[in-house]
């Protein structure tokens, strides 16, 4: 438990200290969202209809952008070997690093989602559900992303390959995340979609650390 907290604190501080990670992901998120009114036209009805999907895709891409460094910088500078030798199992290390990634990427993306909703004329009644869906869905992106990041950790410029590996597995999260927002905006209950997102989160939290740790062990040989 101590190891877990020490690693989370270190990764969060590193992400904030670089000024990079979090800030870049948020700016990318904002820029991607603002591209859509320019591309598809500024009609409020049109924007309201696509807003849920656009915000989710932008958040997914922003999370993806920061994933390739999740293990790679530690792998390159030798820190990963020492983390693997720490008293906690490698699965706990993976879980700690995924949590730190979510705290510095997914959580801010969810927090700024209402602003994106405002930009895209998303009905205010759906804002709460959008944030809730993102709070449930973005940790899934960090956890599944950790598997891809672990598999591609030894590959120089593995970011592109990482995207190809993990994006197909992001699809269920995207579908249920968008469905929840659309249901709320259309006056229906978002409950089943949110429950499915919660199920995805529990499944990913239970399985992803094992898969990612196994991939890291192979890469440490």
């Amino acid at each position, binding site marked *: 438990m101590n190891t877990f907290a020490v690693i989370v604190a270190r990764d969060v501080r590193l992400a904030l200290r670089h000024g990079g990670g979090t800030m870049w992901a948020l700016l990318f998120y904002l820029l991607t969202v603002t591209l859509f009114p320019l591309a598809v036209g500024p009609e409020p009805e049109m924007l309201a209809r696509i807003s849920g999907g656009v915000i989710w895709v932008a958040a997914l891409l922003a999370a993806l952008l920061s994933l390739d460094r999740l293990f790679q910088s530690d792998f390159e*500078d030798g820190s990963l*070997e020492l983390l693997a030798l720490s008293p906690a199992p490698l699965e706990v290390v993976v879980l700690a690093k995924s949590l730190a990634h979510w705290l510095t990427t997914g959580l801010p993306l969810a927090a700024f989602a209402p602003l994106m909703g405002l930009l895209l004329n998303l009905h205010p009644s759906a804002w709460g559900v959008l944030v809730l869906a993102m709070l449930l869905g973005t940790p899934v992106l960090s956890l599944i992303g950790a598997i891809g990041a672990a598999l591609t950790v030894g590959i120089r410029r593995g970011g592109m390959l990482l995207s190809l590996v993990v994006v197909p597995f992001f699809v269920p999260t995207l579908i249920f995340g968008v469905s929840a927002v659309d249901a709320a905006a259309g006056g229906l209950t978002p409950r089943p979609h949110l429950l499915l997102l919660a199920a995805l989160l529990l499944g990913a939290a239970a399985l992803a650390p094992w898969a990612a740790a196994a991939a890291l062990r192979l890469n440490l040989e």
Partner: protein
Amino acid sequence: MAFSGRNLTCTRGGRTVFRDLTFDVAAGAALLLRGPNGSGKSSLLRMAAGFLPPAAGHFAWDGNPATADDLRARVAWVGHADATKAAFTVAENAAFWIRLGGGDSSATGRALASMGIDHLADLPAGVLSAGQRRRLNLCRLAAGAAPLWLLDEPTSSLDDASVTGLIAMLQQHLDRGGALVVATHVDLPLRPSATLSLGASR
């Protein structure tokens, strides 16, 4: 508390690096790995740390075969890379590894002093020279309690004074009953020590 390897064979990329290697390291003794580049010194260390499974043979603690988890639990590791984060200060870097190993962050100052870098404590690690980074990586050893230290070319980029300091630290570890396996190209006057030459038989 003796560490040993029995009939170890290492294959990397389909090539046999060494085969049937057997060695013993008693508590309080050092084993120096010597041999030309590519003779398997680093691979043997990676095996002993539990990263690389041996193609044949096994390691043992006090004669009991050790699993990869047993190996990981007992070693302190210094590899080629120095595991320092440029965005952290020298003290933050050292404190993280010491706390991760279960140590107290109050030990950080002593650890830095042991390699003579306590005056750099508040500098960002990104501005250190290669030798200073190496000293930062080595200083966490002094604060840990691992019985077996695995060091891969620990003297690389160190100046003469730092090599002397390192030797003193290693000797202290031996005197406390710790064991040591070091891959090295320079002579390390450690007592008692044995030398294992790799790559000589091929």
